[in-house]
């Protein structure tokens, strides 16, 4: 596995950093305070081609490789976790269509998603359903040549401004995915505010009151909504979150390194105090390890290897925990300043906590990672026995 960035990836990374430093970092705290992501910034992101990062060139996208997309998510996450969630959910709709859309759906929607003419959002979670996602309560029935959706979705990132939603509903008890435009009859959204983190991620409730959509808006097949359509989308979402957490953690480290080099206590810069060095050393080490897991996930994603799903889960689980630990220590290092919204580290901590919950909570990740470990152990034992038999 080659973990050195090639020239093109380095150049892309440099461009991402310049954009985030200029357009995102100076305003992220204000966006968090106002609980709003400005339309202007979304347009700027779109104009850079970033929203179409994973859309293939044939559909007007940038066709980024897995590493480059990861680097973009890292830089965006470093600047604003709320803005990262736009990349995550918009990308999840793109990924679902790329893998399971019809040719007509791809031809119609991917170019528009690539330019940001259409903003995508992912509608799976409901007021009564979180981790138990295969048992959603929203229903869809085919009535007079149209799908009629009834139900509610909650905590939908960028639900306040998205114009195309990937909505999951039960068709005769079978999980199924649908494309729902904001303009659909019976569709409405309600802003959610007052969140712990992701405060400028434009969260919303979605109300589907006999919401009518064309029959052709089904994505995939009836009964394959959660397993395949959501499966593909959530894997992409976890990948974005893993890299975004890496960026978030890096932001906490960068802030801590800068702060400890400018503030003195007891006549010594904070960086001269050994207990501060201990915290910083742990931050550096954990971020290094998190980065390796993200690179591994990228490598496997590029190969289309079946283990990419589990390795992405591992990356998301570990990096989100690192983001929480690093941001917690960053607040500690900043002292009372770290508890003020004049510094970014309190926002990092609040956003990091959200990362442990979204795209499959860390408890769900632990369950599947443990199972994966046992499977892997048994197969490696079997391979060892087979090798032993051959050599006899």
């Amino acid at each position, binding site marked *: 596995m080659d973990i050195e960035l090639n020239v093109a990836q380095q150049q892309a990374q440099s461009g991402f950093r310049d954009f985030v430093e200029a357009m995102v970092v100076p305003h992220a705290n204000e966006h968090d305070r106002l609980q709003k992501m400005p339309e202007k910034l979304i347009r700027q992101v779109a104009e850079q081609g970033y929203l179409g990062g994973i859309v293939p060139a044939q559909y007007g996208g940038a066709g980024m490789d897995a590493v480059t997309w990861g680097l973009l998510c890292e830089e965006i996450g470093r600047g604003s976790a709320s803005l990262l969630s736009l990349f995550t959910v918009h990308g999840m709709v793109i990924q679902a269509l790329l893998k*399971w859309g019809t040719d007509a759906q791809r031809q119609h929607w991917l170019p528009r998603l690539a330019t940001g003419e259409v903003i995508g959002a992912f509608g799976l979670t409901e007021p009564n359903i979180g981790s138990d996602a295969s048992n959603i309560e929203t229903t869809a029935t085919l009535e007079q040549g149209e799908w009629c959706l009834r139900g509610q979705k909650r905590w939908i990132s960028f639900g306040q401004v998205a114009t195309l939603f990937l909505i999951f509903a039960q068709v005769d008890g079978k999980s199924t995915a649908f494309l729902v435009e904001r303009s659909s009859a019976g569709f409405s959204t309600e802003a959610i505010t007052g969140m712990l983190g992701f405060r400028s991620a434009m969260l919303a409730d979605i109300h589907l009151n006999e919401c009518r959509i064309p029959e052709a808006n089904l994505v995939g097949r009836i009964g394959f909504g959660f397993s395949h359509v959501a*499966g*593909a989308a959530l*894997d992409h979402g976890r990948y974005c979150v893993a890299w975004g957490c890496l960026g978030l953690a890096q932001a906490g480290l960068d802030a801590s390194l800068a702060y400890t080099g400018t503030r003195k206590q007891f006549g010594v810069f904070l960086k001269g105090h050994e207990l501060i060095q201990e915290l910083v050393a742990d931050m550096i080490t954990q971020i290094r390890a998190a980065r390796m897991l993200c690179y591994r996930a990228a490598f496997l994603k590029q190969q*289309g290897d*079946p283990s990419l799903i589990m390795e992405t889960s591992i990356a998301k689980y570990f990096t989100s925990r690192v983001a929480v630990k690093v941001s917690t220590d960053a607040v500690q290092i900043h002292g009372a300043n770290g508890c003020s919204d004049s510094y970014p580290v309190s926002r990092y901590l609040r956003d990091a906590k959200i990362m442990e919950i979204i795209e499959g909570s860390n408890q769900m990740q632990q369950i599947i990672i443990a199972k994966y470990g046992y*499977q892997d152990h*048994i197969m490696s034992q*079997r391979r060892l026995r087979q090798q032993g038999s051959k050599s006899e």
Partner: protein
Amino acid sequence: MNEESIMTKAADFVSQYLNNAEVDHDVDLFATGMVNSLFAMQLVLFVEKEFALSVDNEDLDLDNFKSINAITGFVCKKLDLTTAA
């Protein structure tokens, strides 16, 4: 590549997911609850990488994935290989 080798690879993949359990090739893995949605996506990736083919929208049919025999038949069909009657 032939039907037999495809079946062996499919059986090995399923066995790995089921902690080395030997499974009858006709058993409906999903109906019996032996596998879940995570397996479904891993199976798609396995089939695509192992046999260099693409699983598309029109392939989403439980009859293509529900058992080792079904997986074998699906791959043979995609690769235009003759299967045993």
